[in-house]
């Protein structure tokens, strides 16, 4: 029996979704509550119980985070979008396997990372066809133009372009550990390898990234204007 069905773990829940109603509200102890006010666990539980909308809300809440992970791990917007599609469908269908003691974001994150890694592995199998370089498309998809200051976008693109140039295993480890803040042990569990392997991939990945991103540091130290992303990538 799944955890959510066990009354021992959970008091009788008072919220009753009004499925099919026009407004995205559910009745909560008598008072209408919007999905925004429900936490991740509640949204997921409603989804498992058959609510058709709560999963969409859950994903909407975390999609920028998940996009960041996918685009950094895969380097290509098209690939990242495909990986997220696979990940969200998988999460939708496997929601009842979620164990209530974990954080929903951790669970979702892991599914996204695994979908990305699956794509990387499949790509490695047909390694003969390298991905097309399309800097303009990458720039366009790295974020809506109006939302972020130019230097934020530029720096973001620098990192994305630099990450793209290193080995995919090293990139995945670095994204998890350095960028997403996972511990070595957590990253090892997600990547399904030994902690020592994660450490070594991170170390070698950093060594490769350093010359690609060194202008960050020089600009920070000497106040020299930053090079453009294109120049930076050309350094080698």
């Amino acid at each position, binding site marked *: *029996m*799944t955890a959510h*069905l*066990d009354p021992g773990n959970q008091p*009788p829940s*008072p919220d*009753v979704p*009004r*499925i*099919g109603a026009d407004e995205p509200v559910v009745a909560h102890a008598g008072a209408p509550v919007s999905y925004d006010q429900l936490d991740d666990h509640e949204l997921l539980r*409603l989804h498992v*119980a*058959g*609510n*058709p*909308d709560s*999963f*969409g809300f859950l*994903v*909407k809440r975390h*999609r*920028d985070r*998940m*996009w*960041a992970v996918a*685009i950094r791990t895969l380097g290509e*917007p098209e690939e990242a*979008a495909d990986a*997220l*599609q696979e990940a*969200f*469908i998988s999460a*939708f269908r496997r929601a009842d396997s979620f164990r209530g003691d974990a954080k929903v974001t951790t669970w979702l994150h892991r599914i996204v990372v695994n979908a990305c890694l699956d794509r990387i592995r499949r790509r490695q199998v047909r390694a003969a066809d390298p991905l097309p370089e399309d800097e303009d498309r990458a720039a*366009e*998809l790295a*974020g*809506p133009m109006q*939302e*972020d200051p130019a230097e934020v976008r530029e*720096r*973001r693109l620098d*990192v994305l372009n630099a990450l793209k140039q290193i080995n995919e295993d090293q990139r995945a480890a670095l*994204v998890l550990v*350095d*960028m997403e*803040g996972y511990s070595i042990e957590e990253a090892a569990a997600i990547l399904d390898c030994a902690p*020592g392997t994660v*450490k*070594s991939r*991170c*170390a*070698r990945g*950093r*060594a490769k*990234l*350093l*010359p690609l991103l*060194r202008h*960050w*540091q020089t600009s920070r130290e000497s106040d020299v204007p930053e090079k453009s992303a294109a120049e930076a990538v050309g350094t080698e």
Partner: protein
Amino acid sequence: MTESGLPTSEHLEHLDTDTIADLIENLLPANEAHRAREHVKACPECQQTYDALVRLSEDLADEGRADIPMPTDVAEHLDAVIVSESVLRASTVGVHSLAQIREEPRRHLPKLLGAAAGVVLIAAIGVGVVIATKDQANEGAASTDQNSPPADAVTLTTDDIGSQVKQWLEHTPNPIVHGSADEQACARSFASTQPNPNVRLVQPAKIDGKRATIIGLQGGAAGDIQVFAVTGCNEPGGVASSFYDTTVTLRSR
């Protein structure tokens, strides 16, 4: 230049960037680590690489904290994917707003009308299956003794649901299915989303003053009944939402 950290012919004694990065991660064997550490201390150039690698991790962490806004077209696409998953789930397991399924009848009709005898027959079998899947084929008619629930809504409190269901089901080996055809269909749709969709009980009820439906499903073990109290099933085309669930174990008969 050794900026890249690679050893060159004039600087063979310098550590390469990989070695310095390994040193930072404590990946070098003890004696090698010692030698490397001593070298870094003495060599400004390698010290610089060491510092730069440490700072690179920090910079990546800074960058990593920022979300990247999902492009609108990707977000819209993914929303559509999730909606279609929701519809797919509804059409395979019967949950989701029934109104939404009615909106796209063409997708569902051909399958349903494949045999000309059609929908009525399917509906009849649907009811039959629920009753026939129980293989306790000893007696036919549902018990009508006083321990059976009434055919219309029974009034009780949330706390009493478990014991009441236990009482009802211990007095009959047969499924108890009450309520309007809509209510029963709604309960079966709900059941089909559960791990054990085998319906043992559908009973209209007024629970703590609220119109609800009690659904009992065969649990994992023979005597276990998963009990759900749901709202939404008493309206035509309604969809069940569970607000209480428990498991009862029937005394063996």
